């Protein structure tokens, strides 16, 4: 199957407006980071009881998106699904950018930005997940570059090898990121299920994001995108990732609530405050159950429009999941005196709260602005975008997919242009 890639034109007013807005975000984020590092991190919402906040949540969210995008990209290289070849480049490019976004979020969150670029590499501590991960991340970015190069040069063997390496590496990266939390003695962090559920949620969000990017980009640039392509991604891939993620949540929380030693922490997580509302209403209901139903019910699951809605919900759900990994674990106090309750002290020892500060929001917008800007510019400079994405001829799709009705829907209709 021959796929043609082109650059996008990028001459419309809306393109330049989008670039300008993203550039403004970047500048604002950069300024916010400088201010914070001139005066101190007290300008964030973090405290001595909640020392991690929005940036770390965003970082693990981005890294998840990156791993997920790569796996989608690997559909062509690793699993030989030819109809996904058109997306391999964009997916790999996005994966690289999201990893950079993750790194930027972590960087901007450090107390001593001046030391961040040297110390982790010169004083490596092999027992620290925070020390191992920069290597995983920087290795990840470099493999992405090699993989992208192989894709651009149409190097068959190198593409296959590098896409396999990059997919495995992505899973390693995400396991390592999950381990940042899982490997510390905090009641709501310390769980060996955390890294795998991290990976599962990463795959969900990555697949969902790819659906959104593809549909958005193809419609915006008025290119042909067959419905089957998106339907398979939604019904056959995203749905499985989503259900796996839900399953892991269920087991993790059941286990925590069941055991006496973690019962109280588990109850705090599930029913202990605003975060519980975010968990049940945001993550479980809106972010998981509703999109799962949309994907599994045939009527909605075979409609690109509904799949797009489901994908938006999944991305929001996984963002909440990231936030809910980081924050409640810090808001819940460590049990210092089992059998006793702490009734007073010079500093809160009990439940605490966290609120995001304005500068933190600017930092987040800055990271989004930076990668958004780079993404859009990249599309204009390099031929990332396929001219069309056709489903394979019906018989082979029917053979590959157990769901014959998916193959039998519409025979390659052109996606309507937006506006």
């Amino acid at each position, binding site marked *: 199957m021959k796929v043609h890639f082109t650059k996008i034109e990028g001459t419309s007013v809306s393109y330049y407006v989008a670039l300008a807005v993203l550039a403004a975000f970047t500048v604002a984020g950069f300024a916010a980071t400088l201010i914070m*590092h001139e*005066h*101190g*991190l*007290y300008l964030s919402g*973090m*405290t*001595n*009881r909640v*020392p*991690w906040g929005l940036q770390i949540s965003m970082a693990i969210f981005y890294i998840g998106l990156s791993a997920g995008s790569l796996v989608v990209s690997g559909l062509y290289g690793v699993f030989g699904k030819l109809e996904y070849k058109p997306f391999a480049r964009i997916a790999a490019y996005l994966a690289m950018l999201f990893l950079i976004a993750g790194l930027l979020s972590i960087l901007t*969150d*450090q*107390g*001593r930005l001046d*030391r*961040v670029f040297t*110390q*982790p*590499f*010169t*004083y*490596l*501590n*092999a*027992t*620290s997940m*925070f*020390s*191992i991960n*920069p*290597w*995983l991340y*920087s*290795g990840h970015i*470099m*493999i992405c570059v090699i993989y992208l190069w192989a894709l651009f040069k149409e190097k068959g063997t190198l593409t296959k090898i590098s896409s396999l390496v990059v997919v495995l590496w992505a899973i390693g990266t995400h396991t390592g990121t999950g381990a*940042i939390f899982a*490997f*510390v*003695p*905090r009641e709501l*962090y310390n769980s060996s299920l955390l890294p795998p559920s991290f990976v599962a949620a990463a795959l969900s969000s990555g697949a969902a994001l790819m659906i959104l990017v593809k549909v958005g980009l193809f419609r915006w640039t008025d290119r042909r995108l067959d419905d089957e392509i998106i339907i398979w991604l939604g019904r056959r891939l995203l749905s499985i990732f989503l259900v796996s993620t839900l399953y892991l949540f269920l087991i993790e929380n059941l286990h925590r609530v069941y055991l006496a030693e973690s019962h109280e922490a588990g109850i705090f997580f599930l029913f202990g405050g605003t975060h519980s509302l975010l968990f049940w209403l945001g993550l479980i209901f809106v972010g998981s159950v509703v999109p799962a139903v949309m994907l599994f019910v045939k009527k909605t699951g075979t409609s690109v429009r509904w799949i797009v809605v489901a994908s938006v919900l999944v991305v929001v759900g996984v963002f909440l999941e990231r936030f809910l990994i980081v924050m409640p674990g*810090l808001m819940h*106090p*460590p*049990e*210092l*005196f089992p*059998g*006793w*309750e*702490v*009734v*007073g*002290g*010079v*500093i*809160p*020892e009990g439940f605490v709260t966290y609120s995001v500060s304005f500068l933190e929001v600017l930092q987040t917008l800055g990271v989004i602005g930076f990668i958004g800007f780079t993404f859009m510019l990249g599309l204009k400079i390099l031929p990332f975008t396929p001219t069309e994405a056709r489903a394979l001829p019906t018989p082979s799709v029917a053979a590959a997919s157990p769901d014959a009705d998916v193959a039998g829907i519409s025979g390659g209709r052109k996606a309507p242009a937006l506006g």
Partner: protein
Amino acid sequence: MDRRNFFKTTGAVLAGASGAASLPVLSSCTSEPARAEESVLSGKRWGMVIDLRKCKPGCTACMDACREENNVAYHGDQRWDIHWLRKVQIRPEDETVAGEEKAVLLMCNHCDEPPCAQVCPVQATYKREDGIVLVDHHRCIGCRYCMIACPYNARFFNYKETEEWPNKDYPKRSHGVAESCHFCAHRLDQGGRPACVEACEAVGAGALVFGNLEDPDSEVSRLVAEGSVKRIRDDLGTEPKVYYLGL
């Protein structure tokens, strides 16, 4: 191979594998930091016994002395104030159980298996040969992972700088680095004792007993050997070197 070495080796292999694929600067990472003269530290393992029965209600002498001695930042804002020592009030959860409210002095436990040092990405937090866990403030990058890992909430972060600098013989910290009690290592190295211990004696309480756990004749060793001491969350396997009487 014990747990520590297992993780060190596994981590080194992992990091090496990823390093080989990315940046070739690993060669400088293998040597352990040698930061203090061995002659001063060898044969010592500092520890403390806190006798809560002798601790005076409402007394803040140890905390005040610590703040003065170590230039510990106080901003009058709970979010950013730093407390190397802090008192908390506790009472039994089950009200039918006998036992009254009591005050417990909390501090860095100087764990023999310190999670903070285990997770520090730059080895800024480390355990000295004499068992003291301390922070190299010139190396700390301010990632706050140690605060996440400490099960005792004993670590604090310099969210902002303070103008106060009461003890000019000891540095104050810039914003952006983490810190916690270091058993007044600078005093110990000159043959002195921690400021809190002296302050507690000065008010006539004598609730803080400090000494060398390696030395079987020291008072701390004797109190620990008596067997009625407790450590906070002993079940975590962190092996604290701060013991409590009357907890």
